[in-house]
C-alpha cells in the first residue's frame, strides 16, 4: 500500500483518464449521463436554497398568501420533475448501463487473459494484478464514474451556492467560505490519520480473521478436538485484542481532538454567523429574513459540499492507484506467439540441449541440457520423482512456455515456426490437474463449438476412455450437466471418472501425440497401471507419452526416459535400464523391495 501511494499525482490522473477513455469506448452513453446527472444535481442543491430564501423573504416582507403560495407551487412542480429524472436515472438507467459496461469490460479482459503467457501465472506480482483486474477492476471503474459524477455535482453546487451567498451578503459569504475551507483542511488531515489507523489495524484484523477461520472451517475441526491448539489460538486472540486496544487508544486521542476542534470551531463560526445576521436583520436592516435563512441553511451545506469534494477527490486518487494494476495487465504483451506454418501430421519430436527455468530471476534451472527424441507410433515413458521436471517438459512441448535456451523441433522444424492453434490440434495432453467445467458432459469433452454431427465422435471418445459404464447410468447421456455449481441435479464425478473425461477430451481431439501426465495420487498404483495399458491399446499407432513417478506403472513403454532434478540421466527400455544398474535400477529396486 505504502509503495503504491508513491505514484505521482500526474500518473494517477492519467490512470483515471485511461479508465474513463476505456469506459467511453465500452459505453459512451454512460459518460454523457454521468456528467449530465452531476450537473443537474449540483444545480438542484442551489435551487432548494433559493426556494428557502424566496419563501422566507415572502414571509419577512409579509407578502400575503397568494404570492407565497405561488412560490411553493412552482417549487413543488420542479421537485416532481426533478425526482422523475433522478429515479429514472438511478433505478432504471444506471443499473443497466453499468451492467453493459461490466460485460464489455470483462469481455476485453477475458480475451486478453487467454492470450497472455501462462508463464505469467507464476509471476506473483503480475498474477496479483491479473486477479485484481478480473475481480475488482469493474468495481473501481464504476466507483470512478460515480465519484467523478459526484465531484461534478459538488463543484457545480459550491460554485452556484457561492454566487447566491455573495448576492445576499459578502461578509456572510466570506465567513461561510472560510469556515468550510477550514473544515475541508481538517478533513484532509483526518482522512490521512484514518488511513494510517486502518493500516495499523489491518494486520491485527487479519489475525483475527485467521483465528476465526480456524474455528469455523471443518478442515480444522479434528485438530481442534484432539490437540490443545485452541489454547494457543485463544491466547493469540487475547494478545491481539490488547494490541488492538493500544492502537485504538493512540488514534482515538487524535480523532477526538480532530472532532472537537472541527465541531467546536464550526459551532463557534455558525453561532457567530447567526448573531451577525441577526444584527444585520435587526439593527442595520441590510439583510432580509430570507438572507438569514440562507445563512443558516447554506452554512452546513457548503461545508458538507466542500468536505465531500475532498473525500471524492481522495477516492478518485485511490482509484487511479488501483487502475494502474489493470493497465499493467492490459499492456502485457504475450511473448509466446505463433508462427505462420500450419503443423502437419506428427512424425517426430526432437529436443536439443534444452534449458528452462520458470522465473527469469531464478538461476536454478528446472530443466537442464535435456536432449531426447520421440518418433511416430512410439510409447514413451518419462519417469522421475516430484520436481524432476517431467510436467514442465510437457508444458514446453505444448508451447505453454518457451525454453530459455535450446530447441524443440516438431517434424524437424522449430516449434516457434508453427501456428499455435494448429500445433495444439496435433498434440493432446491430459494434465495432473485437469478441470471439469460446470457444463454438459458433451461440452466438457468437445469444448464449446460442438454441433449435432459431433455427438457420435464424443460417444466414441468416451468409449475409448472407458467411461461407457458410467455414461449408461446418466439419464441425459452426454447432455448431463456436470458439477452442482448451477444445477442441483448436476452430476458430481469421482476422481477417476473425471480423469476419464479428461482423457476422452484427448481422444476426441484426434491428436497425433497424446501426453498423459501422471494421474492424481488418489489413484492406486494398480489402477494407474491398468489405465496406462488400456490407453496404450486404444491409441493404436498414435504416439503416446506417459509421465509418472511410479516406476512400476510404465515398465512396458518402448523407451523410458529417467529424469532427476531437471536432467535426463538415463534412457532405454526397462530391461536395458535394469541391466545398466544405475539410478533407475536403484529406484526401482527400492520401490520393489517391500513387496518381496
Amino acid at each position, binding site marked *: 500500500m505504502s509503495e503504491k501511494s508513491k505514484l505521482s499525482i500526474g500518473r494517477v490522473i492519467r490512470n483515471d483518464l485511461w479508465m474513463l477513455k476505456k469506459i467511453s469506448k465500452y459505453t459512451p452513453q454512460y459518460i454523457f449521463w454521468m456528467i449530465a446527472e452531476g450537473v443537474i444535481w449540483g444545480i438542484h442543491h442551489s435551487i432548494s436554497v433559493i426556494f428557502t430564501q424566496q*419563501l422566507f423573504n415572502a414571509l*419577512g416582507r*409579509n407578502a400575503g398568501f397568494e404570492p407565497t403560495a405561488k412560490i*411553493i407551487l412552482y417549487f413543488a412542480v420542479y*421537485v416532481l420533475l426533478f*425526482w422523475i429524472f433522478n429515479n*429514472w436515472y438511478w433505478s432504471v*438507467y444506471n443499473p*443497466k448501463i453499468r*451492467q453493459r459496461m461490466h*460485460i464489455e469490460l*470483462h469481455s476485453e*479482459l*477475458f480475451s486478453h*487473459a*487467454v492470450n497472455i503467457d501462462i508463464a505469467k501465472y507464476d509471476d506473483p506480482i503480475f498474477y496479483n494484478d491479473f486477479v485484481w483486474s478480473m475481480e475488482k477492476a469493474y468495481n473501481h471503474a464504476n466507483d470512478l464514474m460515480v465519484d467523478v459524477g459526484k465531484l461534478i455535482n459538488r463543484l457545480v453546487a459550491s460554485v452556484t451556492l457561492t454566487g447566491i451567498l455573495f448576492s445576499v451578503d459578502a461578509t456572510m459569504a466570506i465567513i461561510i467560505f472560510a469556515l468550510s475551507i477550514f473544515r475541508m483542511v481538517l478533513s484532509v488531515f483526518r482522512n490521512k490519520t484514518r488511513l494510517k489507523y486502518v493500516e495499523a489495524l489491518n*494486520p491485527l484484523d487479519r*489475525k483475527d480473521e485467521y483465528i476465526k477461520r480456524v*474455528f*469455523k472451517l*471443518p478442515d480444522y475441526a*479434528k*485438530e*481442534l*478436538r*484432539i*490437540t*490443545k491448539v485452541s*489454547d*494457543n*489460538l485463544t491466547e493469540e486472540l487475547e494478545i491481539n485484542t490488547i494490541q488492538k*486496544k493500544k492502537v*485504538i*487508544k493512540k488514534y*482515538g*486521542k487524535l480523532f*477526538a481532538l480532530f*472532532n472537537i476542534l472541527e465541531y*467546536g470551531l464550526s*459551532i*463557534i463560526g455558525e*453561532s457567530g454567523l447567526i*448573531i451577525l445576521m441577526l*444584527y444585520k436583520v435587526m439593527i442595520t436592516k441590510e439583510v432580509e429574513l430570507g438572507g438569514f*435563512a440562507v445563512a443558516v441553511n447554506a452554512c452546513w451545506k457548503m461545508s458538507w459540499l466542500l468536505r465531500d469534494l475532498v473525500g471524492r477527490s481522495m477516492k478518485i486518487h485511490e482509484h487511479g492507484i488501483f487502475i494502474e494494476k489493470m493497465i499493467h495487465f492490459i499492456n502485457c504483451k504475450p511473448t509466446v506467439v505463433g508462427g505462420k506454418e500450419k503443423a502437419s501430421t506428427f512424425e517426430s519430436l526432437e529436443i536439443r540441449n534444452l534449458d528452462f527455468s520458470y522465473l527469469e530471476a531464478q538461476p536454478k534451472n528446472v530443466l537442464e541440457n535435456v536432449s531426447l527424441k520421440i518418433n511416430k507410433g512410439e510409447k514413451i515413458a518419462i519417469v522421475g520423482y*516430484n520436481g524432476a521436471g517431467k510436467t514442465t517438459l510437457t*508444458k514446453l512441448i505444448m508451447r505453454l512456455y518457451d525454453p530459455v535456451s535450446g530447441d524443440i523441433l516438431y517434424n524437424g522444424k522449430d516449434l516457434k515456426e508453427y501456428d499455435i492453434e494448429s500445433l495444439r490440434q496435433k498434440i493432446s*495432453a491430459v494434465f495432473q490437474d*485437469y478441470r471439469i*467445467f*460446470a*457444463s454438459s458432459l458433451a461440452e466438457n469433452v468437445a*469444448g*464449446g*463449438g460442438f454441433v449435432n454431427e459431433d455427438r457420435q465422435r464424443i460417444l466414441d471418445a468416451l468409449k475409448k476412455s472407458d467411461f461407457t459404464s458410467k455414461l449408461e447410468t446418466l439419464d441425459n447421456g452426454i447432455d448431463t450437466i456436470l458439477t452442482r*455449481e448451477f444445477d442441483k441435479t448436476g452430476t458430481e464425478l469421482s476422481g477417476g471418472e473425471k480423469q476419464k473425461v479428461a482423457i476422452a477430451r484427448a481422444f476426441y481431439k484426434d491428436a497425433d501425440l497424446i501426453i498423459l501426465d501422471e494421474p492424481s495420487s488418489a489413484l492406486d498404483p494398480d489402477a494407474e497401471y491398468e489405465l496406462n495399458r488400456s490407453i496404450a491399446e486404444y491409441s493404436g499407432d498414435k504416439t503416446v507419452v506417459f509421465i509418472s513417478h511410479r516406476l512400476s506403472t510404465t515398465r512396458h513403454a518402448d523407451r523410458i526416459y529417467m529424469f532427476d532434478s531437471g536432467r535426463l540421466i538415463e534412457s532405454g527400455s526397462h530391461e536395458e535400464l535394469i541391466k545398466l544398474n544405475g539410478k533407475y535400477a536403484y529406484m526401482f529396486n*527400492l*520401490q520393489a523391495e*517391500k513387496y*518381496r
Partner: protein
Amino acid sequence: MAEKNKEKKIKLPIRKIVSDNIFMLKLLHKSSPFLVASCLIVALLDAVCSFISDTFLLRFALNGINENRSFIEIASVIAVWLLIRLAIISIVNLYYRLYYDIKITDVKKDVHSIVYSKATTVDLACYENPEYYDEFVKAIDECSTRSESVINSLINIVYTIVRFATNFTLVVIIDPVLLIFSFIPLVTVPLRTKLNKARYRKEMDLKEENRRKDYSRRTFYLADYSKEMRLTDMSSLMLVRFRESGAKVIGLLHKHGIKIGVLDYLITVCNEVVTTLGATLYAVWQTFVTGKIGYGDCIVIINSIENISYTLTYTTDDLLLFQENALYIENLRSFLDYAPKITDGDKALPESGDIVLKDVYFKYEGASDYTLKNISMRFGKHEKVAIVGHNGAGKTTLVKLLLRLYDCEGSITYGGEEIRDLCIDEYRNIFSAVMQDFHTFALTTAENVLLRKRTPDDDEIIKNALQQSGLFEKVEQFEKGIDTVMTKEFDEKGELLSIGQQQKLAISHVYSKDNRFVILDEPSSALDPIAEYEMYNQMNDACKDCAMVFISHRLSSAVMADRIYLMEKGEISEVGTHEELMKLNGRYADMFRRQAQNYAEVDV
C-alpha cells in the same frame, strides 16, 4: 409458494425480538458493565442538545425578531448556549473515541471467546449437517458485528425518540392541526414494504445469473483452469455464456428497475411534496390568512414537520434492524444452547490398557448405509497395527471413532472401560494423531510441534521432535529458529513449507508427546519412497513403548506390522500378520501380489 414460506420464516414474534436483543445486551453488560448504561446517557445528551440547537434556538431567535426583542438579549442567549454546546460536544467525542471504542473491542473479543470455546465442543457430526453448520458459521461470523449493532440500534432509537418527542411537542403547542401532515409518511409504509420486497425479489432474480457470470469469470483467471482455457475450445464457450447471462441480467434490471423506480418515486413525492410542501402551504396560510401564528413559528413548524416526517419514515428501518439483529442473535443462542451428544463420562482414565472394539456399527448422520459394519478389533498397548484397504473402505472413519469424534453402536473400551464413560479430554490426550488432512497453523514452529501452550521447558522437547522427524535442519536455517512464524498468513516474514515438510512438521507433533497411542492416517502421502521408508523406521523406534496404528492403501508398508486388518466396504475382511495373510491366500494376498507384480522380475 416456497418464497412465501421463506419470507414467513424470517419473521419473529415481537416477544422473541425483545428477548433476543435483551439477551445480547446482558451479554454486553456482563463483559463490560457500564457500557450499555453510559451509551444511553450519552445518546440522550446528544439528542437533547441537537434539538435545542436546531429547533428551539431557531424559534427563539425568529420569534425574537418578530416580537422586537432586543438584539443583545437574543445574542447573549445564543452565546451562552454556544458554550454549553462546546462542553457537550467535547464530552460526547471523548466518550466515543476513548471509552466506547475500547470497551467495544473487549466486548467483541469476549463474545468471540464464548463462541470459539463452544465451537470446539460441538460434535464433529454437526459439520456434516448443512443446516447446523450454516448456523455455526453464521454464529461465528456475525456474533461480534451483531453485538455492536445491538448497541448502535439502541443509540439510534433513543436519538430518534427524543427527536420525535421534542418536535412533536413543539408542533402540538403551536398548531395541532399540523400533526395531520406529520402522519402522512405513515401512508407510505405499505409502499415501503412493497419497495423492500421488490428489491429483495430483484436480488433473488439476479442471483442465479450473477453466479453464472462469476463462474465464467473464474475460469478465465484461476491458475487451475489456465491450461484448459488455452488448449481447448472452452474459452469461447465461457465467453458466450458470460455474455448471455449478462444480457439476461440487463433484462431483469429493466423489469425490476421500473417497478422500483415508480415505488421509490411515490414515496419520495409523498414525503417531499405532500408532507413538507403541504405543511409549508398550510403554515403560510395560517400566517397570512388567519394570522394565528407568527412567521417565526411558521418557519420553525416547517422545520419540525420535516423532522417528524423523517423520523416516522425511518423508525421503521430502525425497528427492522432490531428484528434483523434478533434473527442473528436467535441463531447465536441456538448455537450456544446446542448440547453435544458426545459427552463426558465420570470414570477415571485407566493407567494403561488395550483398545478393544466389539461389534461396532457406524453410519454418518443422514446417510442411509452404514459406513462401518460389524467391526471387532483389538489394539494392544505395545502393538503396531496396520489398517489397509482401498479408498472409501472406512479406514479414516474408524480412526475418528477411536478418537471418539463420533459415537457409534457397539462397544469401544480402553483398559476395560467403555470410552463413553471417560472424560473426553483425558481420553483424547492419550493419542497423537496425524491425520490425512493435517494443517500447518499460522503460529510459531514451536507451537505447531506442541499444538498446546508452550512453557520454557519445552525447547528441548521441540528440538528433539524436529530432529526425529528430520525437519530440524530446515528449521535451523530460519532466522528465528523454532520461534519462526509459519505461513505468510499475517507475517510477511513467515516461512512457507513444502507439502512434504508440512507433513514432517505434523509428524513432529507425535514425537513431542508422551504417547500411549499413535495414529498415522496415510502419513506418507506427500513423502517420496525414501523419506517414507525413513519415517517408518524412525516412528517404529519412537513407538517402542506405545501402541501404533497406521493406515495406508500401500500394502508394502504393512509388512512389518504385528497385525494387519484388511478393510473392504466398511467391514474387516481379513486379519493377521503379513505371513499369515499371505498364507491365507485371500484378498490381501491377491492385492499384495498385484501391487508387487510390477516389481516381480527384480527378484530374478
